[in-house]
């Protein structure tokens, strides 16, 4: 699903955020990208959804080289990706339902179908009753769930989540992770960037460790635990 070959990213004038990253993530995997702040986790995600271009190397997603894409191609490529951020980025003047439906509408789904899909997803997340509320009247956890619903509304093949549980209490974080696993079980590939080792310990999976922009390790959780002992 995702292949990185000698990927580096340098910000002007000479800050090297990522150095010579090589990795492969298979379809249907749920992978954690871990590391301290400044390790390059967010930069790696930005390269994956083509918010930025790598300075060197090649990135293949679903067999397609996404290193150099025109703005049209980037837009088309992103329609297959669901994005979840720590800052939920919901529009305060739209209802919860419209926030979710917006992501479907902008790629050409009819308003009726977009809203129906959004309503169904909100129902699955237990937010059906709040569909007509404005985001600011929701708790942080509920807002994050709305953001996840928005990320899923176009049935993405890949979900990229940057610190998705960063602002959430343990119960809501658990609910969010349960959701991500559910999506994974339906066949999507999930990449979660986090520095929360408790989260990684609890939801055992593959962990890619970054340190100062370099790939430090690529572990299964069991071996990750051993290395921390």
């Amino acid at each position, binding site marked *: 699903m995702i292949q990185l070959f000698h990927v580096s990213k340098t910000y002007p004038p000479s800050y090297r955020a990522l150095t010579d990253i090589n990795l492969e993530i298979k379809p249907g995997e749920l992978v954690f990208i871990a590391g301290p702040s400044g390790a390059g986790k967010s930069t790696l995600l930005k390269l994956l959804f083509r918010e*930025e271009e790598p300075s060197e190397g090649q990135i293949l997603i679903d067999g397609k080289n996404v290193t150099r894409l025109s703005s049209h191609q980037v837009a088309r490529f992103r*329609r297959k990706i669901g994005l979840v951020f720590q800052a939920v980025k919901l529009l305060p003047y739209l209802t919860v339902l419209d926030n979710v439906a917006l992501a479907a509408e*902008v790629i050409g789904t009819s308003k009726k179908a977009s809203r129906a899909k959004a309503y169904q997803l909100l129902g699955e997340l237990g937010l059906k009753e709040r569909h007509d509320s404005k985001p600011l009247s929701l708790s942080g956890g509920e807002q994050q769930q709305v953001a996840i619903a928005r990320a899923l509304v*176009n049935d993405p093949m890949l979900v990229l989540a940057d610190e998705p549980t960063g602002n959430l209490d343990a119960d809501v974080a658990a609910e969010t992770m349960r959701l991500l696993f559910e999506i994974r079980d339906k066949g999507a590939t999930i990449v979660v960037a986090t520095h929360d080792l408790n989260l990684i310990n609890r939801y055992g999976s593959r962990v890619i460790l970054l340190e100062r922009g370099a790939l430090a390790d690529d572990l299964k959780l069991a071996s990750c635990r051993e290395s921390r002992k």
Partner: protein
Amino acid sequence: MSLALVGFVLRRVGLNLRQLFWTYVLTCGIVAMTLFVFGTFILVEINLEHLLKGWGKQVQLNAYLDKNLDPGALQDLLKRVETLPEVERVRHISQEQAWRDFQTALGAQSGLLEGLPRDVLPASFEISLKSAQRDGSVVEKLAERLRKEKAITIVEYPQEWVERLGLIVLAVEWAKWIFGGALLLATFFIVGSTVKLAMLARKDEVEIMQLVGASEELIQAPFVIEGMIQGVVGGMIAVTLLWLAYLSLRNEMPSLGGFLAPLGQLQFLDLNRIALLLTVGWLLGAAASVISLRRFLKTWNTSRGER
């Protein structure tokens, strides 16, 4: 673009117009004032051109007579002029007749003449030329010959005015492009800034749209349509204001006589020129939006990339 996307764009336009209603009203007003000035120049220009065309059709000389001319000398002069080979007909307009004509021309405002002596206007000959003699150089030579008559003080003929007015029309045309052009340029930046303001007000939405895979065209379309709406609405307001100004001028103006007679009634913009003003407004809105958006998105995307 699919019907679903067209619907989406129109809903965004509606939302944005509601959110920034007063900003758009202000911008429409500025576009309207610019196009009003531009349209005023066009209005002046077409009326002068109309006058010119009328003068071109008239081949007539006006010879104004010395006030102290006695009746015998007047008859002699009349005969001399009538027998000139180029002349078809001569009409003598006495001082009394000139006064009455002027009073008629002023209509309701003829009261302005109260207190003035009735012999304030000079008597004159209206000289019509034979059709074979309507060449510009013939007219000029005849005017020269008439000027040599001691009893004739001033000789005027349309061709002379045609040349002078031709220059005025040219000046108005230049002024239209210089002043109108400067105003259009200033308005271009104002419309561009309004669109930029709309973009800033909705930058979160734009960012989300970019992240979920909306095309650049879809992101820009609502803003460009809003720019076009401002341009066309501004154009419509300008045409309405011009029409009101025209009506008010036409009703206030006395009926025209003498050299201004060919003008008849003041002319208003024809359909082509109204369409031109609306098109200028539309293009102004569209071009300002597209250029402003491209520059804004380029800077914005670059600054996001550098974070």
